[in-house]
């Protein structure tokens, strides 16, 4: 017996292969398969966790799904702020060919000098931002240059179509889409929303191939609808800007309130800024003066003192008050009127804005009464507004008032308020003695006020305000065509160190219209006018007049005063 394997029946094909060789081969294969089996068992069972993790690291990615920031809308649903997609350009400087022929073009598209671009690329070898939030069109042009090492990241950029007219109210966000000022800051939580996420498998080219687990969808931020009417806002801002420029003033503010609902229809400040281009901003521009700046309100508090005097039964509107030659001496101080009035009724004293008459009324009151009245209309208290930096003003406790201080407080010195507080205070006269809560968000129903004065006394003071804006009053320039108005001027000296500056003034006007059934309350402040007068009746009242005129038209209020037609067009004979 041959110990060999026969491969065929033909004797020609017989070979003398020993059996052990084939056994060796079989054993070798068996060993290899055993090895494979062991490896498979190791990969699948014993070392499974490690390999699973490595696989995840290589191919699974968690993608963050950014939420859309909510929009800010005006009362008619027009967009005041919204987010649009923008591309942020970043670079890996190591991979960039510095001598690339398109480098100057890149610098031009990124809006920076070529040297600055090179300097930026030197900052870090592997990552530098070249430009955050470039608009899509520009980004596409940059992409078309085809420079290696330049990358893009999708981000959102806030756009403010109203520009500087509403900059202070709406505010702005930073590059990370977090509110920094105004409504963007105050309502940041509501606007922001919540990011979602998804876990995906990516292939070799980075394409998403499969969702690994359930997608968590992002929760978009909610829209905020403000009470602002962008048309009224624009008119108010425009008139304010004209007045500030005409009188070469340092700045100014205006507040327009709806006297029925307590909504803020407009709130503007000048100087302002363009929220879409926020380079080189100064505090002067960014400050929301109407809310953050406090000042001595001057004569604009007189109606409050008068209302208090009526309420306490000290006087009636026709009561005669002796103002003499317009001087009143208290200790070392002398209180003066602008001109001597003699003996006048309270109505007339208010119309001429007599300091002496007010001091005489205040002398019959207790300090506590005055303090309470001022406090109840909101002086010295932070306004109930969700707005960053709204000032409370200053009203010292009545225990520390000296008699001279109580006297000056009756004509608006020795306490401070913001323009916004002043405007809110005047809702008392517009709403028959009730102080309205003020809101920046749109509301439909009429607001319920807090009673401060009785209706007939508030109406009596409203009548005085109308007289003040009538013929012979201090505020004649507040009159409008078609609508009756009432209001009070104010002019106060600017504090300088411990005293008052001689030539620096603030001019105010606070008023309401129409006088019989007020629909709006408007407060105007012009800071340090230097040309063309400084009295509130000359500087601030015309702004009030123009704003009221347009506001009431926009609100669709029927004119309550007869209008002489102003159409001056002639009949033109058309040829033919």
């Amino acid at each position, binding site marked *: 017996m041959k110990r060999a394997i026969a491969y065929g029946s033909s004797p020609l094909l017989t070979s003398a292969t020993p059996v052990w060789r084939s056994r060796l081969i079989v054993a070798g294969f068996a060993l290899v398969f055993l090895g494979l089996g062991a490896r498979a068992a190791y990969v699948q069972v014993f070392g499974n966790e490690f390999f699973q993790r490595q696989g995840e690291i290589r191919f699974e990615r968690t993608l963050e799904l950014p939420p859309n920031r909510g929009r800010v809308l005006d009362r008619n649903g*027009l967009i005041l702020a919204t987010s649009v997609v923008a591309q942020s350009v970043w670079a890996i400087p190591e991979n960039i060919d510095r001598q690339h022929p398109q480098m100057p073009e890149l610098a031009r598209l990124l809006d920076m000098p070529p040297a600055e671009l090179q300097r930026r690329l030197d900052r870090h070898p592997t990552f530098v931002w070249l430009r955050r939030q470039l608009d899509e069109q520009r980004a596409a042009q940059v992409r078309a240059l085809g420079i290696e090492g330049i990358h893009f990241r999708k981000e959102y950029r806030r756009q403010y179509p109203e*520009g500087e007219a509403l900059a202070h109210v709406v505010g702005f966000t930073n590059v990370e889409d977090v509110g920094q000022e105004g409504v963007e800051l105050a309502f940041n939580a509501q606007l922001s929303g919540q990011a979602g996420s998804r876990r995906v498998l990516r292939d070799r080219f980075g394409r998403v191939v499969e969702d690994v687990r359930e997608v968590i969808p992002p929760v978009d931020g909610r829209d905020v609808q403000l009470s602002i009417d962008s048309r009224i806002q624009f008119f108010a801002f*425009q008139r304010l800007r004209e007045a500030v420029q005409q009188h070469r003033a340092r700045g100014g503010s205006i507040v327009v309130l709806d006297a029925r609902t307590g909504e803020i229809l407009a709130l503007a400040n000048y100087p302002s800024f363009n929220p879409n281009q926020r380079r080189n901003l100064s505090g002067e521009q960014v400050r929301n003066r109407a809310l953050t700046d406090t000042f001595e309100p001057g004569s604009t508090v007189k109606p409050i003192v008068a209302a208090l005097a009526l309420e306490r039964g000290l006087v009636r509107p026709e009561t005669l008050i002796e103002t003499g030659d317009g001087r009143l001496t208290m200790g070392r101080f002398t209180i003066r009127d602008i001109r001597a009035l003699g003996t006048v009724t309270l109505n007339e004293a208010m119309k001429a804005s007599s300091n002496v008459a007010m001091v005489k009324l205040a002398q019959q009151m207790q300090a506590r009464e005055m303090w309470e009245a001022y406090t109840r209309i909101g002086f010295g208290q932070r306004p109930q507004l969700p707005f960053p930096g709204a000032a409370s003003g200053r009203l010292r406790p009545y225990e520390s008032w000296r008699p001279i201080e109580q006297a000056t407080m009756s004509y608006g010195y020795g306490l401070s308020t913001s323009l916004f507080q002043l405007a809110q205070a005047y809702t008392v006269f517009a709403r028959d003695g009730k102080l309205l809560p003020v809101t920046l968000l749109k509301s439909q129903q009429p607001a319920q006020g807090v009673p401060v004065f009785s209706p007939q006394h508030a109406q009596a003071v409203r009548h005085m305000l109308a007289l003040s804006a009538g013929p012979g009053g201090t505020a004649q320039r507040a009159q409008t065509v*078609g609508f009756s108005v009432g209001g009070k001027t104010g002019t106060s000296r600017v504090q300088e160190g411990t005293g008052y500056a001689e030539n620096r003034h603030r001019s105010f006007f606070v008023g309401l219209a129409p006088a019989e059934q007020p629909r709006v309350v408007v407060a105007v402040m012009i800071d340090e006018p230097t040309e063309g007068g400084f009295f509130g009746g000359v500087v601030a009242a015309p702004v009030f007049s123009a704003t009221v005129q347009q506001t009431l038209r926009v609100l669709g209020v029927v004119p309550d005063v007869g209008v*002489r037609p102003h159409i001056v067009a002639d009949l033109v004979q058309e040829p033919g």
Partner: protein
Amino acid sequence: MTRLNLVLLGVLLASALSLVHQQYEARRLFVALERANAASDRLASEHEQLQVQKRTLAAPARVQQLASARLQMRPIHPGITEVLALPTGSGGPAGAEAAGPVQRLQGPVAAPAAPAAPRPALDSPGVRP
């Protein structure tokens, strides 16, 4: 017995192939869905962008500037405004036509001094050159 096995083998093979095909189909549809989602996102952001653009172009500042500079218009004021009141009880603008004539409260034409010339309708052709 052998025949049954062959049939089962055939079924098994068919099932395996269909599994492969289904997986391929799922991937393909997933990619298509991704693409459609991306397109929807892009269109939404484009829409937002266009809305902002529209709003910027229609911003009061720009409109006012164009109206006064290019069209020589000026702000309205009550002296040149005719005020009409809808008859009460007509139930808003929709019922105004049915409820009879509107009442003229105030306006330039109502004043006795002004000539009661008929005005051309706003939308009549030939008013503007």
